[in-house]
């Protein structure tokens, strides 16, 4: 049963970051929040989908809606879905590389409850399912994915990340981390939360390397694990 996860407000402010977040990235202009940020949000959406994308709808909010044309936000979003990185000079001609991908841009009415540069990316996937990813461009090329379908997340693309939704029960963390340990992959951070004892629970594990698909399949097979996303880090 889908449910809405309460937002865990872990602000990207106040956390010590790399100097290369400030002096960088090397990127195609003209705007780090509207062009590079757009590329990265769509890249993360592509990683989350993890299968061919047939059509995509970009719903643009607030500043994204008002200034997307002049900033190449539309080209950036398309480029990210197509797998280009922020420093790829083909972003400028992204419309020429869409091939069979169908795409729509929708300018949404102002919503002051959302951050200034917000996009909702609705993906139509090869397996016939649809996926909705909500993301925000925070400035200087930093991004945040806050929602995957009904689930609230806090994903920034800085680490390969495993996101799980599961039934709260003893041994769950052990079963999952065992699969990770078997690959000799180090866990950078592990965040867990649950709605209530024995209710739905959430795990986000930041890793120092991407987990191989075989291990992801093993984790998906664990009883009472509902959703697993294995999301690579953004290329720098």
């Amino acid at each position, binding site marked *: 049963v889908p449910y809405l996860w309460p937002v865990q407000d872990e602000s990207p402010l106040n956390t010590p970051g790399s100097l290369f977040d400030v002096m960088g990235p090397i990127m195609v202009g*003209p705007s780090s929040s509207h062009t590079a940020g757009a590329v990265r949000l769509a890249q993360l959406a592509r990683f989350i989908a993890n299968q061919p994308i047939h059509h995509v709808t970009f719903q643009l909010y607030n500043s994204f809606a008002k200034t997307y044309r002049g900033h190449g936000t539309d080209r950036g979003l398309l480029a990210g879905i197509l797998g280009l990185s922020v420093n790829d000079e083909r972003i400028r001609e992204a419309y020429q590389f869409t091939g069979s991908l169908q795409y729509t841009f929708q300018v949404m009415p102002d919503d002051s409850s959302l951050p200034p540069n917000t996009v909702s990316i609705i993906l139509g996937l090869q397996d016939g399912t649809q996926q909705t990813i909500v993301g925000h461009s925070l400035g200087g090329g930093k991004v945040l994915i806050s929602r995957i379908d009904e689930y609230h997340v806090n994903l920034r693309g800085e680490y390969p990340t495993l996101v799980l939704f599961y039934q709260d029960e003893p041994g769950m963390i052990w079963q999952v981390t065992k699969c990770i340990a078997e690959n000799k992959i180090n866990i950078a951070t592990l965040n867990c939360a649950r709605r209530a004892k024995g209710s739905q629970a959430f795990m986000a594990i930041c890793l120092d390397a991407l987990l191989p698909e075989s291990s992801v399949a093993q984790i998906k097979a664990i009883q009472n694990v509902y959703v697993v996303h294995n999301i690579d880090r953004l290329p720098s």
Partner: protein
Amino acid sequence: MMLQTFSDLLQLCQQESLSIGQAALKYEVARGEKDEAAVLASVRMMLDQMKATIQSGLYSDEKSMSGLSGGFSHKVMTFFEQSDKKFMSPVEHKMMAYALATMEENSRMKKIVACPTAGASGVVPAVLIALQEEKHLSDQTMELALLAAGLVGELVSRRMYLSGAAAGCQAEVGVATGMSAAGIVDAMGGTPQQGLDATAIAFKNMMGLVCDPVAGLVEVPCVKRNSVAGIHASAAATLAMADIYSFIPLDEVVEAMVKVGQLMHPSLKESAEGGLAATPTAVAFTKNLFHQGSS
């Protein structure tokens, strides 16, 4: 490494006899992602891209897609090389031209280094590379100077999002100017205290700067604003190195910027609805641009 505030940074520099650039290198290495050689290699990569962008843009007359910019850096270089009316120094001419070159490449959707953002990407490279050329500074000096600028930006980014949409242009060109001022002081061998005072002086004069891009494009006033900001950073660095201190400490200046950013009306935060973007000339241009775009 526990660095929360600029006062922590100053204390670290004084206790361990470090320049801001050396402290920045230590900070980045302590994060554990890269060792010292790898950090310096990444810094060199940034500097190399900054130089490459300036070189490709400097004498280019290619217009941006909107036609609002393109060819300005060429004009400044021509004025510098040929005019008998010039009165500023070579380093200042280069700072102005180099910032224009980078911003014009940016508006052509070419490769730049966001520093701290793309809309403010002209200032730091222009200031540091012009200084290196005119003062014959070593690559090693410039690597540390860029790290110093980076650490200033990083500490500010803990307090506010560095985007015009979040806090106005004070968070973009404003922050780039303060970063540059610290970079200049570091490159010229000033003290860490002078570096932070230079940043504070620069920020105090950039506080409240609105983000009002004509037609929402990163061109007017951004391109020329980057150019003038380099001179601004130089002035702030000169005052600080003459031992003129900032009456308000840098941490408090940053807090004030954060509050000003919150108070700033949404029409002045990158929405292209206020300031220069709402002038008759801008409105007429925007109407025409989008009319062409839809036909």
